[in-house]
């Protein structure tokens, strides 16, 4: 498995590199370290979201409500900041994680206790959460002038030459990596995705594991709620509208199997980064904006076809000579 997966991620990394090289041929400035770091920073939020989505997809579920969760948490934190500028930012961030996790837990409870298919639950909460953004804000936007300077500036600061936003992504990636590979809960995500029946026989509580995956995705969406709002300095009903499918696309490109049980942290990160590079490169090389959508659609399809190739079980081989070959 390792061999196979490693090549998959390697291919993806090569693909990203190829795009960078191609763009650089036309615009040498594109691959300057500064610009590449900017792309990484720009993609940070998508990377974190993709990791949360991956946890959910691993358990044979899907969370279509992540973008709405992000918008709702973002609006809550923005309004809180506007109303009480004195509340320290770390406290606000912790609040975001808690609120996001609670929204995720709402999805999770419905999946766990009522056994409603995740796609149905999150299709419902996708609209409910976003509707709530409107309800709590009355439709009004919270703009830069209403936010406190700390609120806006925190993620723009730098540490060791890297913006704080990028550090958020790095830390989240590390934590998710440890969770996925080193804890029973993380392995349970994989187990119930690979074979839910067997997971029950192994003593894994399938419902509760899915619940945990949703809580994780929700917590990450909540964190990203703050990061998104302070990055684009506007909180509105339409924040991250339609982004739910972009997050899924990042996972898919990164080799996370929609059927569950297959996917790695590195893959999801690279999948997000790939979309980030493509989205960043197109305007830079002056591709007509009207071509962008078709190009990212094609990129998704190509990735899906390639992943489908490598995911196909080669089956077992009976003939000796075929085995030797």
């Amino acid at each position, binding site marked *: 498995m390792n061999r196979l997966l490693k090549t998959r991620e390697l291919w993806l990394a090569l693909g990203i590199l190829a795009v960078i090289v191609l763009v650089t041929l036309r*615009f040498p*400035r*594109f691959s300057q370290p500064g*610009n590449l770091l*900017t792309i990484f920073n*720009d993609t940070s939020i998508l990377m974190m979201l993709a990791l949360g989505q991956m946890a959910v997809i691993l358990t044979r579920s899907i969370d279509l409500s992540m973008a709405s969760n992000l918008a709702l948490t973002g609006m809550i934190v923005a309004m809180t900041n506007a109303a009480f500028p004195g509340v320290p930012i770390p406290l606000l961030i912790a609040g975001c994680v808690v609120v996001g996790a609670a929204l995720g837990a709402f999805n999770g409870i419905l999946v766990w206790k009522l056994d409603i298919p995740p796609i149905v639950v999150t299709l419902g909460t996708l609209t409910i959460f976003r509707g709530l953004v*409107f309800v709590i*804000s009355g*439709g*009004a*936007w919270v*703009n*830069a*002038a209403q936010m406190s300077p700390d609120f806006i500036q925190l993620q*723009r600061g730098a540490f060791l030459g890297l913006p704080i936003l990028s550090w958020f992504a790095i830390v989240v990636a590390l934590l998710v990596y440890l969770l996925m590979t080193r804890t029973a809960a993380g392995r349970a995500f994989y187990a119930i995705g690979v074979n839910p029946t067997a997971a029950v026989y192994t003593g894994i509580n399938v419902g509760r594991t899915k619940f945990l995956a949703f809580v994780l995705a929700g917590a990450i969406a909540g964190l990203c709620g703050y990061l998104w709002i302070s990055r*684009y*300095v*506007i909180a*509105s*009903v*339409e*924040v*991250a*509208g339609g982004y739910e499918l972009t997050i899924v696309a990042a996972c898919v490109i990164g080799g996370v199997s929609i059927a569950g049980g297959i996917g790695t942290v590195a893959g999801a990160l690279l999948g997000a980064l790939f979309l980030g590079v493509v*989205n*960043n490169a*197109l*305007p*830079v*090389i*002056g591709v007509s*904006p*009207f071509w962008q959508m078709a190009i990212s659609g094609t990129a998704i399809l190509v990735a899906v076809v390639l992943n489908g190739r490598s995911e196909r079980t080669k089956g077992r081989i009976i003939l000796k000579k075929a085995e030797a070959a």
Partner: protein
Amino acid sequence: FAQTRIALVVKSLGNGFFDAAAKGAEEAAKEIGDIELIYTGPTTATAEAQIEVVNSLIAQQVDAIAISANDPDALVPVLQRAQQRGIKVISWDSGVAPEGRSIHLNPSDIGLIGETIIKLAADYLPEGGDVAILSAASTATNQNAWIEAAKAVIPEKFPNINLVATVYGDDDSVKSTEEARGLIAAYPDLKAIIAPTTVGVVAAAQVVTDQNLIGKVNVTGLALPSEFKQFIDNGASQAVALWNPIDLGYSAVYLAKALVDGQEAAPGATFSIGKVGEVTLDDTNSAAMAAPFQFDKSNIEEFSKIY
């Protein structure tokens, strides 16, 4: 009791510009008296969603609809139906084709807006240089008209301004941010970004601030003072312009009420619009209000408190 019911339909709810317009409309309704104002619109700025809103207004048998349209053509059939059912229809801000409405109220003259947005950039570029436009959706009627007008005016009036690109941020802050970044990366000599849309201009100014390009790249365009004040303050932008949305909503209600009261909309007809004065219809039954108003360091503080 015979109240006149006027619906003010906007592109999307929650947009500060339209909220300000609604404030003006409310004011006009109060002044005229006996008017029930319905302020409504979709939450996503699409034509289909707006059609559903208009459908429900037809069912409610309102007396007049004043709409800022998401699409000049797609709304025509449903607005024609409204007119068939005896509802007066005017468009304001972003218009619909003449078949779909009696009057269109332009916030300002299209040519004038086109010229203003270029002038805002040129004023701070005595030597000239590269500028780019960051627009709203590629389908936005008014933005497209302004950009056309701007392009037309460059060669004769601003010969040393070089418009290098027009990109579309879809009035989405993320897309606008990405497009602004793209412009800066692709055109190292870019001197100004012109964003004739309130979402785009904020996004562009934030990008310029974040990338420490204040003083190198000037952001300008059309902006709500309340949302844009800090970027004038921090120098990311020298000046922006906008008409008064309050007056726009105010006038729309006056026009709608006049139609309901039986005044005919025909080329050359003159309508009184309360304290704003009066407007005269041109041969497409359109009327234009005042020239866009310019905001800079000297006055932004004051206007940001109003809208």
